């Protein structure tokens, strides 16, 4: 008998009932909630006179609408100036209170972007099914958990039944073999994967990321990769459990202790694809071929290496691609064959559930240390993914490095990733962004997003245009005087 994939194992461990029509009832271990997609679900529960099935499976935090400026945040919910945003956050508070769901409120030090908070607390554990009314729930797959986004009616379904009606996906494996070059990060890996397979390449699949280059990533890096599985079309991204996973989870607040920890670890060791497990689709990339990536268009697949150039739409093979490239160049205000390093920037955003964890901030700070943001940059901001990331960064002096270089140091939240709060791009502005979507107007009406890694974003902030972070002079970084001062 051929072996099982990691996805197959997770699926069968949670299968409550297989129905004749091909759908199945899947048990949900962890349900994360935020303010935007939950209000109507709670309302639905109330109208039907239902209660949450299992309170302890739920964990909530507001993230999309929260202001990130220090002053506004000091005022708590009152600092939310937009009335609709305020109501959404207050509604989450009220719902969590009245139903008895644990919530990290706006100024709880544990508050943050839901996909940063879950893992950080150990609320995401290997072998769990994790859902959230948010497509970037794929992030949690980095822990060998079966995790994906759901809609509002499904949020209600999970609250009421602890189950989801689902259909089994197909298996895909993306292997990244070899060793990543210096300055090449998880973000570059996932952008390169999306560039290769396209934004529909993973549709219908659960993608398992594997190979030495993936195994060598930290948990933060693995989360960055799985986070963007959805940009490759896959609702689920997965990475097998290994020592890195287990070391990360030890002693986290929601992780088990004592004998139970040992039993859990023994169980988690099985959360790998068996030798000889069959995948419906396999793709391999060579780590050595991946250079720091920059997206030039309005879809995450419109991406190239830093030494590359904006494509010439006329050169595209197929007419549909020609049209979409031409449309993207027009929107982005770029010219065919323009060098990526010639793209000038107006703003820089380091944050989002893709890249706002401590390691991301360290990488950006390493580049920014002792340097200054270019005068042509209107705004360069660093938004930590959670209150705990912020504290950690401050304890390491990263905030000082950023502030001295001319970055704004903000409070945690989704911020300019989708511009639901006050952080927005203006029309026509180019932004080096560590987020995950470069869709038209995603970061503000008419805004132009370029997806990059934190190190590349910091380097771009200093140069005022994209530069190869591998060529950045790091002498200042090693200057003991500067380090001490920081």
């Amino acid at each position, binding site marked *: 008998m051929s072996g099982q994939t990691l996805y197959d194992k997770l699926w069968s461990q949670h299968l409550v*009932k297989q129905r004749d029509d091909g759908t199945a009832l899947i048990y949900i271990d962890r349900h994360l909630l935020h303010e935007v997609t939950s209000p109507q679900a709670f309302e639905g529960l109330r109208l*039907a006179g239902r209660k949450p099935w*299992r309170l302890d499976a739920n964990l909530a935090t507001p993230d999309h609408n929260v202001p990130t400026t220090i002053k506004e945040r000091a005022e708590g919910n009152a600092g939310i100036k937009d009335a609709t945003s305020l109501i959404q956050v207050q509604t989450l508070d009220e719902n969590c209170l009245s139903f008895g769901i644990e919530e990290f409120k706006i100024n709880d030090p544990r508050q943050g972007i839901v996909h940063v908070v879950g893992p950080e607390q150990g609320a995401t554990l290997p*072998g769990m099914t994790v859902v959230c009314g948010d497509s970037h729930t794929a992030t949690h797959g980095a822990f060998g958990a079966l995790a994906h986004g759901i809609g509002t009616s499904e949020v209600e379904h999970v609250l009421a039944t602890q189950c989801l009606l689902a259909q089994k996906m197909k298996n895909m494996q993306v292997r990244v073999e070899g060793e990543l070059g210096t300055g090449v990060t998880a973000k570059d890996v996932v952008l390169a994967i999306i560039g290769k397979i396209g934004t529909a390449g993973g549709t219908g699949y659960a993608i398992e990321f594997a190979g030495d280059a993936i195994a060598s990533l930290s948990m933060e890096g693995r989360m960055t990769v799985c986070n963007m599985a959805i940009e490759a079309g896959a609702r689920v991204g997965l990475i097998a459990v290994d020592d890195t996973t287990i070391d990360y989870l030890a002693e986290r607040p929601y992780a088990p202790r*004592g004998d139970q920890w040992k039993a859990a670890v023994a169980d988690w060791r099985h959360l790998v694809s068996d030798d000889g497990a069959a995948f419906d689709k396999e793709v391999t990339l060579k780590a050595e071929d991946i250079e720091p990536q920059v997206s030039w268009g309005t879809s995450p697949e419109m991406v190239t290496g830093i030494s590359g150039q904006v494509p010439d739409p006329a050169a595209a093979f197929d007419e549909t691609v020609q049209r979409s490239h031409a449309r993207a160049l027009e929107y982005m205000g770029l010219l065919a064959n323009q060098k990526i390093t010639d793209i000038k920037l107006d703003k820089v955003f380091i944050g989002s559930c893709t890249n706002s964890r401590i390691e991301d901030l360290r990488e950006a700070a390493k580049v920014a240390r002792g340097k200054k943001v270019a005068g042509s940059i209107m705004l360069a901001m660093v938004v930590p993914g959670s209150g705990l990331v912020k504290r950690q960064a401050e304890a390491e002096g990263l905030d000082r490095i950023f502030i001295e270089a001319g970055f704004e140091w903000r409070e945690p939240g989704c911020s300019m990733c989708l511009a639901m709060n006050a952080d927005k791009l203006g029309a026509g502005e180019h932004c080096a962004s560590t987020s995950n979507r470069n869709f038209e107007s995603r970061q503000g009406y008419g805004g132009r997003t370029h997806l990059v890694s934190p190190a590349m974003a910091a380097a771009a902030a200093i140069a005022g245009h994209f530069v190869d972070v591998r060529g950045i002079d790091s002498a200042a970084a090693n200057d003991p005087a500067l380090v001490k001062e920081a």
Partner: protein
Amino acid sequence: MQKFERLEGLVAPLDRANVDTDLIIPKQFLKSIKRTGFGVNLFDDLRYLDEGYPGQDIAGRPLNPDFVLNQPRYQGASVLLARRNFGCGSSREHAPWALEDFGFKVVIAPSFADIFYNNAFKNGILLVTLAEEEIDRLFQEVEPNEGYRLDVDLDNQRLITPSGEVLEFEVDAFRKHCLLEGLDDIGLTLKDEDAIRTFEARHRTERPWLFRETMQVG
């Protein structure tokens, strides 16, 4: 979802074809975080003479006296009689939410838009499709007869007019079942409650660390 019970409902006639979802509930009201409370803005553009916005106090708004739902004789209506292609336009679930919140339990028309059709049944509203001639006849009967009620008998798939005339209608067996039993997706899943509990108990024994009450924390 509530069980759909047989009802004798007051009928309000909306003599207009292609009533789209924007007409049912204009887009500015979609910002709400609720699934209830849309009733006051149902048919907002037709019902009021000013432009509505979310969160407004409706008490002082000028009503359009010509609009059918503003007429005293139709207060308390639970059956909406409508024309062809009712519910066309966007997929907003706010449209059935608004109808339901207003108090409509049944809409009768010659045809309905697809997405609206699904959404309405999901929210416990019965949509009855009748032939154009039958609809014409109902319109003619309703207008001169104040207090005109229809007996809506979903179980037997028929409407009975005040004069005792029986109008039969078709309805998909699964949808009918869900409506009569008050089952939504959640209701259906809860029919497997025992299977879920059995699974949960085993899961908890095998992997107690997945449950915070059985998780060892110290």
